[in-house]
């Protein structure tokens, strides 16, 4: 739009800028009704509501798109056992779709007392503190006992032999520091939509956890206070 040219002896017609002398009312140009279209001029009510509706639509579209995108990017989850809820009932050994079960005993070494008489390794009243099968709690011999500096011993789980029966977990939790715990091992778990063990778990110990942090280790504070060993 051309700038209105002021005339020395009178006002210029704003809309058409003809520059003719005299009162603006004398100008018959048809530019006057379109004055509202000019930049900086007030919009009509229709234009205002139209713009508002278009803006709201665009905003909602963006919000919905972002929500959908967020939902689709949600992290994959996997099954895991909360060791603070697990009651070591033996269902994990029996109900998994895999044989042997994808649930295994794991050793949380920072909690272990490295005891000579490990109640997770030995039967409640062993004949001797030796590795003879009749002295061991584990029905499949899946716990390895290694002598360290006297009188300490290290206990390791041989996962290829472990069936997830939790017998050792009972002994360790009841009498020891509770460093043995059952966990779903994700190198073999097929991550069923509905885990057969979770359905029968009497303690509701099966939970979904992010695949990036698939294990739930016990807290040292779990029982009553941190363990000193």
């Amino acid at each position, binding site marked *: 739009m051309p700038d209105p040219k002021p005339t020395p002896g009178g006002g210029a017609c704003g809309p058409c800028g003809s520059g003719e002398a005299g009162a603006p009312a004398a100008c018959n140009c048809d530019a006057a009704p379109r004055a509202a279209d000019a930049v900086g001029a007030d919009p009509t009510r229709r234009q205002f509501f139209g713009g508002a509706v278009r803006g709201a639509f665009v905003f909602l579209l963006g919000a919905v798109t972002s929500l959908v995108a967020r939902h689709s990017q949600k992290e994959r989850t996997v099954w895991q056992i909360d060791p*603070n809820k697990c009651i070591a009932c033996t269902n994990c050994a*029996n*109900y998994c779709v895999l044989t042997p079960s994808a649930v295994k005993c794991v050793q949380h070494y920072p909690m272990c007392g490295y005891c000579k008489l490990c109640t997770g390794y030995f039967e409640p009243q062993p004949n001797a503190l030796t590795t003879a099968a009749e002295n061991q709690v584990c029905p499949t011999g899946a716990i390895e006992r290694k002598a360290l500096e006297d009188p300490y011993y290290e206990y390791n789980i041989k996962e290829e032999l472990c069936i997830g029966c939790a017998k050792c977990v009972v002994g360790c939790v009841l009498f020891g*520091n509770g460093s043995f715990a059952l966990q779903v091992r994700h190198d073999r778990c097929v991550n069923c939509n*509905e885990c057969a063990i979770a*359905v029968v778990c009497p303690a509701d110990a099966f939970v979904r956890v992010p695949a990036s942090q698939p294990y739930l280790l016990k807290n040292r504070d779990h029982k009553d206070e941190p363990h*000193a060993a």
Partner: protein
Amino acid sequence: MKQSEQHQDLSRRRFLRGAGLLGLGGAVGMVSPRPAPAAAAAKPARATEARPAYDLERFRKTDPALVRYELAGRFDSPYPELKRLCLGPDASLWLTAGKRVVALDLQGGKKTEFTASEEVRCLAAAPDGRLLVGLKERIEVVDAQGRRQARWDAPAKKAWFTSLAAGPADVFASDAGNRAVYRLDWNGKLLGRLGEKDKAAGVSGYVVPSPYFDLEIGSDNLLWVVNPGFHRFQAFTFDGRLQQTWGDPSFAIEGFCGCCNPSYFTRLADGRFVTSEKGLARIKVYSAAGKFESVVAGPEEFPKYFENLNATPIPMDVAADSAGRIYVADTLGNQVRIYRRKESA
């Protein structure tokens, strides 16, 4: 041509109607709640294999002939989290519950109380009535009214005080964090360490798998310390010479079960030992020479201890008065149980 247009129009309408219904159905499906998994899936009708259980049943029942004590009374702890107890020289029963320390008379009436700055781990009453209060890394000395008189920091880093013993001139403290027993004077000055590993002297050192590491000064003027990893008592002179040992690991009633027991003990006036174990909750009496004598309370007295594997309670502290009554801090029931010897025993 017209028919074709109509056909096209109808098809489009049908298509849109169908798509609308599909969309509506999808929306309803999205907002409807998911069926509960338990309701959706019945338990698999799958035969389960019999798995061997960790069998403790045979140890949970005590031969009645061995039980020579009976429950003489009980009263609730005034606060939750009852943990430790000891008897003072003025017939006060001191209890700890979280940060609180409470003095009761022997019927359970409250005499005095105070609150420590953090959870109290252990306590001991001195012959002159003063009380030693063990926090995790600090020992506080308070008078009989609970006013703090002194505060001593642990002699070593990563300390975890588990037990205290107070004599007229000496104080002993066990530190599970460093597997050490300290001898201090009443100014908190470290006088020595007792029982550290010394092959030449035949001292094995302490094995402390969990923070239960009790000690007490005996009437024989020896410091008696539980070496829990070995299930053994050790007696030292105050300057650290090993004098006696006794104790064997066993789930049988004569021994100490689990991987670290006894958790707590006290001495009767005649020198006999009263021991408390965790895992199999049992309170027993041994002669001054360490020979098993009788049972105060067996596992069957504390059935709740086996109800939930993950609710295994903390062990029960014990104390004994001059009349031979035994006070047990039942941590699960949050009450003090008092046992006396049966008249027939």
